[in-house]
């Protein structure tokens, strides 16, 4: 029961994080020639800096929740995956955990970049973090469909 609650919280935090980082990334990539009345222009017309701290907090929360349910995965999901010869599923999860770890280490630089005026650093770090968030969300979803935690 506790695992299900933690997994659901992990999912909800992941959804919030996905929305926030996507919003910020689209805002950074939006071409300036788009007409102001277009949906994409209105979607991206927000204060991107306001997302930074929320994204960092959500990322940490997501990794912490993932870290709490990870032993359960290791014992009750990974071993059956190995028995079912689903090495690719184990590999996908390994990439997810390592990308998540790298993302945690990236957060201080990401916060610094959004506090500075370095546009290249902002763009590069935000897109790197967005890639990690999207990858981890999709892989988590696929693996949970294959064999969920209970």
């Amino acid at each position, binding site marked *: 029961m506790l695992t299900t609650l933690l997994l659901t919280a992990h999912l909800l935090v992941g959804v919030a994080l996905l929305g926030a980082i996507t919003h910020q990334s689209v805002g950074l990539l939006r071409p300036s020639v788009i007409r102001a009345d277009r949906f994409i222009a209105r979607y991206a017309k927000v204060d991107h800096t306001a997302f930074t701290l929320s994204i960092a907090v959500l990322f940490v929360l997501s990794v912490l929740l993932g*870290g709490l349910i*990870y*032993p*359960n995965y*290791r*014992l009750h999901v*990974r*071993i059956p995956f190995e028995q079912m010869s689903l*090495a*690719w599923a*184990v*590999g*996908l999860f*390994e*990439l997810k*955990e*390592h*990308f998540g*770890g*790298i*993302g*945690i*280490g*990236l*957060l*201080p*630089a*990401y*916060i*610094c*970049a959004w506090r*500075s005026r*370095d546009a*290249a*650093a902002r*763009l*590069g*770090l935000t*897109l*790197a973090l967005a890639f*990690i968030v999207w990858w981890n969300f999709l892989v988590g979803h696929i693996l949970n469909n294959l064999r969920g935690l209970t």
Partner: protein
Amino acid sequence: MRGTAFSAAFCGGYAWALATKHPLFLYYPLRGDFRWGMQPLLGFDAGGPAMTWYGIVATAGLIGALSAICIPRGLSKALASYLWLFPLGAMVVCAFLLRRFF
């Protein structure tokens, strides 16, 4: 700027710790035990599966923290615009090391 140095060193340290198998500690979920990374691995029958991820994050965090103190401010500033290459490189290293799964 300390954050930039921390993140750059963290990414490099993470890839290094994973490639050379240097987690700071290991966790055995079946027994709920932590053991230092330097200690010999318990056999699967004795301890169940060992988890290295927490220890690798700790190793990378330690390397990042030490580098944040030691790396000069000027170098951190110069690195800032190219810092995205560090996580990218670390992710490529991870994918390469895990290629046996695919």
